[in-house]
C-alpha cells in the first residue's frame, strides 16, 4: 500500500514539475520569441510637449539720446525693466511674452550717427556701430527738436532692427520713473510693429487652436503662405501654347539672379530654396477665354480662374529630385488667335498686373505680346520678354506665399522701404518668430500623435532608429522652446527645423507599417492546436492535485474531530 502511495506521490510531483517547467520556462520563452520589438520612447517627455507652453522673449534696447533727459535723470540710467504678458489660448496652449527693456543713454558715436542729415543715413551709420542680435529691437529716442524726421512723423523704422522715436523733452523736475512710464506705451507700439504681434503667433498656431480666435486677416495670410518646410522648390514655367507664331525668349537666369536670389539669400535662415525654370510648349489653360467686343480682347473672369490650373499642372511635372513643396510661377503668353487676354476681378474690372495667385500653390501671370508685332510680321516672331515687369509680379506673389506680410504701420510711422533684398531685418525677424512657433507646434503635434498611435497599436514594431529619431525630435523641440525662452531666435528656429525634420522622418518611416495588419484571430488559429492539447492535461492534473489536497485536509479535520 505504501508503495502505491509513493507511486501516486511521484506522479503528483511529476505533474507539478511539468506545470512548473511550462510556467517558468515555456511561457516566458513563447512570450520572448513572439514579442514585437518595441524600443523605448520618451513618452513622459512627449506628454509634457503635448501641452504647449511657449515663452517668447524679446530684448528691447531703448537708447536715450542727448536732449531727451535732464542731467539728474541721466544719472539713474542705465536700468532695465521687464514686462510680461500671458495668454491662455486653450487648455493645452499657453503663450507668454516677455519684453526685457534696457534703458541706456547714447554713446558719443551714436550721438554722431544721430546727427546725420537724414534718417536713412542715421540708420545706416547706427547699424555700422553695433550689430544687434536676431530678434531684438533697438529704439533710439530723439528729442522733439531733432531735424532727422519730418514734422508729422513720429517714428521711423529702419531697414535693420532699429527705430527712431521722437519724444517730447521731459521737464527736469519729473522723476525718471514717470519719464519712462510716459515713454513706455510709445515704445510698446514700436516693438509691436517691429517684432511679432499676438495675431501673427495665433495664426502660426492655427493648426492647433480653434479658428475663431485668429483674426480673419492673419488667418488668410497664414493660409495663403505655404506650410513651413525645411526647403522649397521654386519653379518658373513659361507657357507658350503657340510656338508657331511666337518664338519667346526670356532671360530667366539673369532675372532670377537679380530679383529673386537676393530675397532668397536673405531668407536663408528660414529654409533652403532651389530655383529652376522650364519652357512648356503647347500648354493651354483649362478654360476658354471669352471674347469681349467692347474692349476687343479676350477676358478671363475671376470665377473661372479656379479651373485654369489643373490641365496645366499635368504638364508641369513634379520635382523628381526632392520631396520639398513646390511653388509654381507660370508666365502664360496667349496664342496669337486669343490675344490679348485680360483677367478681370469680381467687379469686372481688368486687373492691372494681369496676374493671380493660388494659395499655397503659386502664381500665374498672363503676358500679352500681340502689340509687339504688326499684322505683316513674319511668323514665328522673335519676342524678348521684359523680365523686370514679370519678376515684379512674381516677387510680390512669392512674398505672399512665403508669408512675408505687408506690415500696416500705425499712424505717424514711416517704414523705410527695404533695399535690394526686398526684406528688412526686422521683417525677417517677424517671419522667424512665427515660423519658429509654427515649427514647434507642428513638430510637437506630429510627435504626440505618433506616440499616441504607437501606444494604441501594440503590434507595431518600433525600431531603434525610430526611437532615435523620436528622441532627437524631442530634444530639439525642448531646445527650441528653451531658446525661445532665452530670446535666441536664430537658434530657436534652427532647433525647430531639426525637430520638424526628425519628427517627420520618424512619422513616415516605412518600417512602422510592417506588422500593423496581423490580425489576432489568425494568431489564435495558429496557437490553439498547440496550446489546447498541452494545457488541458496540465490543468486537469493540477485540479486533481488540488482536489486531493482539499480532500486530505477535510479527512484530517474529520479525524481530529
Amino acid at each position, binding site marked *: 500500500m505504501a508503495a*502505491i502511495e509513493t*507511486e*501516486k506521490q*511521484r*506522479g*503528483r510531483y*511529476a*505533474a507539478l514539475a*511539468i506545470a512548473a517547467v511550462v510556467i517558468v520556462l515555456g511561457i516566458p520563452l513563447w512570450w520572448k520569441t513572439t514579442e514585437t520589438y518595441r524600443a523605448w520612447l520618451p513618452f513622459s517627455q512627449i506628454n509634457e510637449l503635448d501641452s504647449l507652453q511657449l515663452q517668447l522673449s524679446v530684448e528691447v534696447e531703448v537708447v536715450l539720446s542727448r536732449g531727451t533727459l535732464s542731467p539728474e535723470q541721466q544719472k539713474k540710467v542705465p536700468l532695465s525693466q521687464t514686462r510680461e504678458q500671458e495668454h491662455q489660448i486653450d487648455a493645452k496652449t499657453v503663450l507668454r511674452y516677455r519684453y526685457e527693456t534696457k534703458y541706456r543713454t547714447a554713446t558719443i558715436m551714436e550721438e554722431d550717427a544721430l546727427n546725420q542729415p537724414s534718417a536713412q543715413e542715421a540708420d545706416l551709420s547706427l547699424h555700422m556701430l553695433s550689430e544687434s542680435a536676431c530678434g531684438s529691437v533697438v529704439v533710439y529716442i530723439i528729442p522733439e527738436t531733432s531735424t532727422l524726421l519730418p514734422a508729422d512723423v513720429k517714428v521711423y523704422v529702419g531697414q535693420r532692427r532699429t527705430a527712431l522715436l521722437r519724444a517730447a523733452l521731459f521737464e527736469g523736475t519729473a522723476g525718471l520713473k514717470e519719464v519712462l512710464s510716459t515713454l513706455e506705451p510709445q515704445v510698446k507700439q514700436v516693438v509691436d510693429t517691429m517684432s511679432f504681434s499676438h495675431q501673427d503667433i495665433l495664426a502660426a498656431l492655427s493648426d492647433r487652436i480653434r479658428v475663431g480666435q485668429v483674426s480673419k486677416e492673419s488667418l488668410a495670410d497664414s493660409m495663403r503662405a505655404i506650410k513651413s518646410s525645411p526647403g522649397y522648390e521654386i*519653379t518658373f514655367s513659361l507657357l507658350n501654347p503657340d*510656338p*508657331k507664331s511666337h*518664338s519667346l*525668349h526670356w532671360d*530667366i*537666369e539673369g532675372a532670377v539672379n537679380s530679383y529673386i536670389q537676393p530675397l532668397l539669400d536673405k531668407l536663408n535662415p528660414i529654409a533652403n530654396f*532651389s*530655383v*529652376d*525654370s*522650364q*519652357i512648356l*510648349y*503647347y500648354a493651354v489653360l483649362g478654360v476658354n477665354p471669352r471674347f469681349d467686343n467692347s474692349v476687343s480682347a479676350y477676358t478671363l473672369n475671376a470665377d473661372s480662374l479656379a479651373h485654369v490650373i489643373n490641365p496645366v499642372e499635368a*504638364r508641369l*511635372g*513634379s*520635382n*523628381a*529630385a*526632392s520631396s520639398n513643396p513646390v511653388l509654381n510661377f507660370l508666365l502664360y503668353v496667349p496664342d496669337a488667335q486669343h490675344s490679348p487676354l485680360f483677367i478681370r476681378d469680381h467687379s469686372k474690372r481688368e486687373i492691372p498686373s494681369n496676374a493671380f495667385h493660388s494659395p499655397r500653390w503659386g502664381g500665374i501671370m498672363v503676358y500679352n505680346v500681340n502689340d509687339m508685332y504688326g499684322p505683316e510680321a*513674319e511668323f*514665328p516672331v*522673335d519676342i524678348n520678354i521684359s523680365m523686370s515687369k514679370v519678376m515684379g509680379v512674381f516677387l510680390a506673389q512669392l512674398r505672399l506665399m512665403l508669408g512675408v506680410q505687408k506690415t500696416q504701420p500705425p499712424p505717424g510711422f514711416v517704414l523705410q522701404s527695404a533695399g535690394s533684398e526686398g526684406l528688412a531685418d526686422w521683417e525677417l525677424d517677424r517671419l522667424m518668430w512665427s515660423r519658429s512657433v509654427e515649427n514647434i507646434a507642428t513638430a510637437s503635434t506630429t510627435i504626440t500623435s505618433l506616440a499616441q498611435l504607437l501606444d494604441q497599436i501594440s503590434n507595431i514594431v518600433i525600431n531603434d532608429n525610430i526611437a532615435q529619431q523620436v528622441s532627437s525630435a524631442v530634444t530639439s523641440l525642448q531646445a527650441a522652446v528653451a531658446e525661445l525662452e532665452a530670446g535666441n531666435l536664430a537658434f530657436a528656429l534652427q532647433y525647430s527645423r531639426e525637430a520638424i525634420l526628425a519628427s517627420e522622418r520618424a512619422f513616415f518611416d516605412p518600417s512602422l507599417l510592417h506588422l500593423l495588419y496581423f490580425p489576432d484571430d489568425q494568431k489564435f*488559429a*495558429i496557437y490553439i*492546436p*498547440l496550446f*489546447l*492539447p*498541452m494545457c488541458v*492535461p*496540465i490543468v486537469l*492534473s493540477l485540479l486533481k492535485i488540488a482536489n486531493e489536497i482539499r480532500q486530505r485536509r477535510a479527512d484530517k479535520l474529520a479525524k481530529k474531530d
Partner: protein
Amino acid sequence: MIFLKSSISTRWFWAPSAAPSSAAVSLPDSCEEELLIRPLHSGDIYASFQFRTLWDTDFLHQGKKVSHYRLFPKSLGQVLSKFSVRELHISFTQGYWRTMQWGQPIVPSPPGAELWVWFHNTVADVDGNWKELTNVLSGIFCASLNFIDSTNTVQPSASFKPLGLGNATDHRFLRYATLPREIVCTENLTPWKKLLPCGSKAGLAVLMKSEKLFHSSFHSQAVHIRPVCKDWQCSSTAWELRQTLNVVFDLYTSGQGKKEWSLFKMFSRTLTEACPLASSSKVYVDVTDNPEGELFDLSPATSVLNTAVVLGDRRTYSVYDLTQKETFGQLRSLNLVLRWKGESDMLRPLLHAERYVAGFGLQTGEIHTLIYNNHPYRAFPVLLLDSVPWYLRLYIHTLTVTSKTRENKPSYIHYQPSKDRLRPHLLEMLVQLPPHSVTEVTVQFERALLKWTEYTPDPNHGFYVGSSVISALVPSVVAMDTNNTQERPLFSSFFPTKEESSYFVRVYTEPLLVNLPTPDFSMPYNVICLTCTVVAVGYGSFYNLLTRTFQVEEPSQPLAKRLANVIRRIRGVPLL
C-alpha cells in the same frame, strides 16, 4: 537612278535652324524628329520614330547647378544632375523582335523593361544612387522599375560599354537590370510623350495614338541620354536625349490581310505640319529593295532620295521633309500610301540568336542558347551576357560551348556566382563564331525552393528569366561611316562606329519562362496544425507516462481459459 543628298552636308546637325531675324541669339539646344518606315518582307511594316534633343550644357559640372530648361525636359535633367548620371538607357518593350522575319531592328531592346546606367566616377555610393534613381524613374515613366533591386541588377564587365563620349572602363559605375515581366501600355506612353518638346500636339508625335500603337505585333519605346561631341573636333560636349519608338504593324491584324499600308491606316492620322521647334523633321521610307518600283508603289512620290549605311548595309530612302510646304501638297496633309505588288526574299541577318529551357521535372533543367552566324566566310567574336536569377542555381561546370559539333572554348569568361536573395548570376563570355555555323551554349541548373512569401501572386505562371544579350562587331559588307558628327539620318547614328570594316549589333534572345516547384499555399497552416498535433500527441503520451501511477495487477486468466469458461457456463459444466 539619282542619289541626292537630301540636305546640305556642310551644315552640322547641332546648328539651330537659321533664325528669321538677326537679333535672335543662337540657342544652346535644338531638337530633331524623324520617322523611318521600312516595309518588311513578311508584309508587315516597321515604323521607327526618333526624336533627338541636343543641349550644349554640362550637368556634371561641379558647383554650378543647371536649373533652367528649354527643350530638354526638366524632370530628366534634374535626375541626371542629382544622381550624377553619365549615361542612361531605358526601354519598354511589348512583344519580341523576330530577327529572322524582320531583320535587325534600328534600336534593339529586350521584351519588358531594360535599364542601364553609367554613373559618373565621382559617385561614392553607386548602389544607393541606383536604388533611388530606379524609384524616381519608376515615378517618371509610371512603370514598375521600383522592383529593380540587388537581386536583378548586374554589373556587366564588357557587354555594355558607354555609347557616348568617354572611355569609362570601370564597370563599378555601371548598373544593368531588366524586368522581363513588365507590361507596357498606354500609361507608359503618356509620360514618354510628355518629354517631347512639342508633346503630342504637333509634328510626328501626332501619329502616336495609343489605341493604334498598341494594336501591333511589336511596340518598343526608349529613352537614351548620353554625352556626345558638340563639333567634329570634340572640343566640348553636349547632352543628347534620344527618344525612340518602334512599332511593327501586323499584316493580318492591322492591315486586314490587304497588302496596302498608309499613314492613316497605321496611325489613324495624317501629317499636317512639322514640330515648329524642330530644326529638322523628316519621314524616310526604305526603298532599297524597290529601285524600279516592282515591289511596291509609294505615293506621293518624292524625288528626294538619301542613302545611308545602316547596320552594314547601304540603303536607299525616299525622304519627305516636313519643314517644306511642298511636301504636304494641295491637301495640306501628308498620307503616305504603300501598295505591294510583288514578293521578294530578304537577306538573312548575319547574326541572330534564340534560347530555350530543356529538361523535365521540377528539379533540374538546362538552358540552351543558340547563336547563328550566317556570314558565308567570315568568323567573328560575340560577347554573350546572361543574367540569371539566383533561384536558378547554375552548375557552371556543365557549361559547354559547341560549334559545328566541336568544342569552342570561349577566349574570355567572366562569371559572378549568385548569392541567395542578394544577387543574380552573371555570365559573360567572348565566343568566336565560325563562319556559317550555329554555336550552342548550354548550362545546367537546379531550381531552388523559395520561401513562401517570395512567390509571385500567380506562381504557376512561371518565373521569367531576362533575355541574353549578344553584342558583336559584325563584319560589314560596305564601308561604315566613322564620322559620327556628320549629318546623317538619326536612325543610322545610334551606335557609334569606330571602324569602317564592321558595325556594332546587339541581339536579344527570348526571355525564358521557367516553372519552379510551387507549394500549396495553404501549406503553412496545415503544417502548423499537423506539427502541433504531433507535438500534442507525443507530449500527451509522455505526460501520461510520467504522471500515471503504476500498480501491479493480479495476473488475469489467459484468454483461452476465459473463453472455455464462457462456453462451459453456457453448457452448465463446472468451470475450469
